[in-house]
């Protein structure tokens, strides 16, 4: 078992080192401007389907979200315009470096969170998800101290029990 864990960790380390070298550079302001401009346009597009209005309304339910999306579009236009101006005048753009290893690790954490959520939901027992969460994070952190496993699991069960039996939250 120990050997298998070592092997697994070794493989992950090698993979991690490879990923660590991989980076993506994105013109962050340009991407943000474009992404939110598309988002604002999409919201404006679905507005008639998503917000019913009455003819009696002095100011209807679409007015405020429309105003917000207009402001968002204006801000996006300013962001994009600023970056395009920089491009035209050959000034350096605002770049952001995305490290693939960090994103992969974030995805692993997200996986633990999603696992916790779905296990709790499907079993109807929060404690099952809580135990999975503890084990997931302890393995993620490559924790080798048995006492940490015991402490974390006991606290996880205690939290569930406190909510379930003392505070009366049913899960």
């Amino acid at each position, binding site marked *: 078992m120990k050997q298998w864990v070592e092997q697994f960790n070794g493989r992950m380390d090698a993979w991690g080192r490879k990923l660590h070298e991989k980076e993506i550079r994105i013109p962050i302001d340009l991407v943000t401007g474009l992404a939110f401009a598309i988002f604002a346009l999409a919201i404006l597009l679905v507005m008639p389907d998503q917000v019913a209005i009455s003819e009696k309304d002095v100011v209807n339910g679409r007015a405020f979200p429309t105003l917000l999306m207009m402001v968002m579009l204006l801000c996006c236009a300013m962001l994009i315009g600023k970056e395009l101006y920089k491009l035209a005048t050959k000034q350096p753009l605002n770049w952001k470096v995305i490290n693939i290893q960090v994103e992969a690790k974030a995805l692993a954490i997200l996986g633990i969170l999603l696992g916790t959520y779905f296990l709790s939901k499907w079993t109807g027992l929060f404690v099952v998800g809580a135990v999975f969460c503890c084990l997931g994070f302890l393995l993620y952190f490559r924790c080798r101290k048995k006492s940490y496993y015991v402490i974390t699991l006991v*606290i996880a069960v205690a939290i569930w029990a406190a909510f379930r039996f003392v505070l009366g939250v049913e899960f």
Partner: protein
Amino acid sequence: MKKRILSIALVVAMCVTLLAGCGQKSATWKVTCPWAPSGVAAMVSQQAATKSTSYSDTITLVAEAIKGDAATVNTWVADTKANDTELVFVGEGLLSITSILDPAKMQFGYEDFVFVENLYSSIFVLSADAKLNIDSVADLEAYVKQGTEISVAVNGATSSEAFLAAALFGSMGAGNQLKLTPYQSAAEAAQAVARGETQFAVSHQSQILETYQQKGATIVCAFDEGNIENGPFAGVEGVGQHGYPYFRNRCFVMARAGTDEKKVAELKELYGKILADAEVVEWLQNTMLLEVDTMSVADVEAHVENVKSIVNSYKDIVAG
């Protein structure tokens, strides 16, 4: 440090287990109120729950308020089955208003419940900006005849209060003059009339009492058959005697359909005892300005149908 953490964790776990292991002699019935914890129904439910142990060794009521209206009741219906020790509040807002205006919001019907008891009834009152000097139905009729715009503050755009206002002014032939101004709470609506933002407001009696005592508003009429009999608004005219439509606000305690009739009868009996408690009666009358109002299934159905007919008649004024 590690040992300390371990020992603390173990002690916590043991305490929790001990607490969890405490046996319960009587069945605990959870009463879910799908409205705000500070609302009238939640407070009455809490009061009933507190009293339940004094009147029964076999049933303990536990009050819980999860605001969410139809969504909370949807969840309740989905999560419960016959004979579960769960009760829920359902009012005319859901059974008579939402079911007509927005049935898609409701994943349940009256048939999903079995009626246990109605705890109280509340007579809504129409208040007016004190400057208008309107304190009777006759004054109101004269004011309406002037043909000016009538603005009424209500708690929520399609609430019971909104329909009562629409029914009253609509039946006076002033539906086109009526402008309903929705507020986030009944207390806010009551304040609006005192500030002169609207000319009128519809609210529970307890919610307008303070404004009335501060002389910010006058009480025009009550949405009931006869005059109000008790409390600070005793003598206020009921609109029913002038031929105008009305209904009282009621909140029914329901069990899941199919629940053992004996259990339902036992619960009804317990609620009956609690509602007969002198302290509860006094609290309901003097503090909450409500009336104890136990009902039969036939009464409930009649109430639901009455409100439905009002909603059908005046929904164009309210929802546009």
